[in-house]
Structure formats: structure tokens, C-alpha cells
């Protein structure tokens, strides 16, 4: 009877109900839900594994709020500015925007292709041929603490076998680009057409 229901039973009932609703809703969301078995932070996982292998020499990346270290070529603002016209002209350079569709459509670097890191299965099938044919792939996200560009680059190398040398991370990201007065365009991904 409810009168004899102990506190722990109420807590467990709520916890199980929350788990059930969450799983149902996540399934109903389809591709916009989370894939429960997918590691969305492969760069952090690799950094943590390396730290373990080095017996702590790389000092606990997992517990830090800073970005994981990465072995990709790091692009600064000047590099991004120099390469962006080639990306806009679809001339051997691809800029990948790892942010969400909403942020991308609100404004992105001209010529950049949308590849939201957390929905990469949705975008990459249509992009892989273009990426493999490129001379340079520049990946960016918001900048600051955002690490989605690093996580996406790690997946491109270790899941999709793109050569690491092909990839560059624009570390300042979209925020730095805008602050520097760089051109931005709004709207959906133009596909293979130039912007």
C-alpha cells in the first residue's frame, strides 16, 4: 500500500520512470537522438588512454575542462583567411563546419560545408568523396572551449581513414573569424556549389 511505501521505493520508481521515458523519447527522435553506443568524444578517449599508457605524463585530460591535445595541423586566423577563398571556389580546399545546423544556417564561413559532429552519420556519406579529393580539409567549430572540430577530425582519421596530414583545425573557430571581421553567409549548405 502507498502508506507503507518507503522513501527509497519512491526514489527508485522515479529513476526507473525517467530512464524509461528518456529511452522512449530518444528512440522516437530517430537520427536526431543520441546513439547510445557511440563515442562522441574520440579525441578525449584517446588522450585519456595515452595518459594512462604514459603513466600520467599527459596529466588527466579527461578531468580537465580544456580542449584535448591534438596532433592535427593548427590553423591560425591568417591561415584560415588565406585558404578560405579556395574553399569558396571549391578549389582543392574544404572548410568543414562542425557546429549544429541551426548555428551553421545562422552564419558560417563562406564555402564551408555543414558537418555537425554529433550528426556526422547524416552528413559524411555525401561529403567523403569531396574530402578524399581535397588537398586540405580545414575543420572549425565555435572556437573558445569548443572541441567538436577536434572530435570530428579524430573520427575522420580513425573511422573514415582520411590521412591525418590532410586535416587542419582552425582553432579560433567561428567566433574569432567573426571578431576579425571575416565574411559570413547565412542559409543552408549549398552542397557542391560554390557560395
Amino acid at each position, binding site marked *: 500500500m502507498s502508506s507503507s511505501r518507503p522513501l527509497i521505493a519512491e526514489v527508485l520508481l522515479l529513476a526507473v520512470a525517467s530512464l524509461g521515458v528518456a529511452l522512449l523519447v530518444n528512440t522516437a527522435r530517430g537520427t536526431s537522438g543520441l546513439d547510445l553506443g557511440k563515442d562522441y568524444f574520440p579525441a578525449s578517449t584517446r588522450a585519456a588512454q595515452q595518459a594512462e599508457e604514459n603513466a600520467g605524463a599527459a596529466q588527466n585530460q*579527461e578531468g580537465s575542462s580544456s580542449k584535448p591535445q591534438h596532433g592535427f595541423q593548427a590553423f591560425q586566423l591568417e591561415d584560415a583567411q588565406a585558404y578560405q577563398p579556395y574553399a569558396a571556389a571549391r578549389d582543392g580546399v574544404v572548410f568543414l563546419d562542425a557546429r549544429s545546423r541551426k548555428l551553421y544556417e545562422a552564419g558560417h564561413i563562406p564555402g564551408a560545408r555543414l558537418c555537425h559532429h554529433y550528426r556526422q552519420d547524416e552528413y559524411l556519406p555525401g561529403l567523403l568523396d569531396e574530402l578524399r579529393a581535397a588537398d586540405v580539409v580545414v575543420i572549425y567549430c565555435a572556437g573558445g572551449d569548443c572541441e567538436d572540430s577536434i572530435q570530428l577530425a579524430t573520427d575522420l582519421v580513425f573511422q573514415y581513414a582520411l590521412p591525418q596530414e590532410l586535416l587542419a583545425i582552425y582553432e579560433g573557430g567561428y567566433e574569432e573569424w567573426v571578431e576579425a571581421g571575416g565574411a559570413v553567409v547565412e542559409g543552408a549548405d549549398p552542397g557542391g556549389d560554390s557560395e
Partner: protein
Amino acid sequence: MTRERLLKLLALALGIILIVYGVQKLGEPSDFLKSIHAYGILPTQPPWLLNLSAITLPWLEILCGLAMAAGPLRRGAAALSALVLAVFTAAILVRSFQVMGAEGTPFLELAFDCGCGSGTVVIWQKILFNGALIVGTAWVALAARRPADA
């Protein structure tokens, strides 16, 4: 106002706050996932642990909020909410110290997106507010009568 009525009003107010917190986190699951990851409390392996937490915690807040406001399971909802709020608040404090150490920002000037669903917040205010919520939910958990006592 009787103590019982005050308790019900407080539970209703806390319930609404929890529902709002939960709903704010429901929009884009990857946003809340990133926030949890940024705290570095849960490991990235096995992946389901982080992913399951990201999809479940918002619903836990919503269901606890509903239970607090509606009455049945109020004690359990209040106790669970106090526990979750205490863990969140401790995590915000730990991250505050990390940011202070990395950037040298004084505590009273700290502001970042705590993943609480309301964007960038002033941290000392957030911690103070969470402290009040913890006290409130703990009081409801301790003071709410079981149905047999009512």
C-alpha cells in the same frame, strides 16, 4: 498560513523550477551531452554511460518536478532532486576552480555556461541559487508527510 500549506506552496514552486530546468535541456541532446562531458566527471568509456546520463537527467528533473508539484511521490522526488542538485552544484564548484586556475579569473567574476540550460551564468549567483534549491528540496523531503500521516 499553516505549515502544511507552506510546504505545498514551496513544493509547487520548486517543482515548476525543476520542470523548467529539465525542459531547457531537452532541445538538442548533444548540447547537454557536451556540458556533462566538459565537467569530466564521467569517463568517455563506455560511451553509453555519458550518453544515457545526457538523455535521462532532463527527464529526471521533469518527472521529479511534476511529482513535487502534484503530490504523489513528493518525498522521493524531493530527496532525489536534492541529491541531483548537490552533485550538479559540486561539479560546478570543481569546474569553477579549474577555470580559476587556468584563467586566473576571480571567483566573483566567474561566468560560464554551466550546462544548466540557461546559457552563460554568473557562477556565484548560480551556486547561491542552487544552495537555496537544495535546502528547499531537502526540507520538503524531510517534512512532507507520508500518505499514512496525512
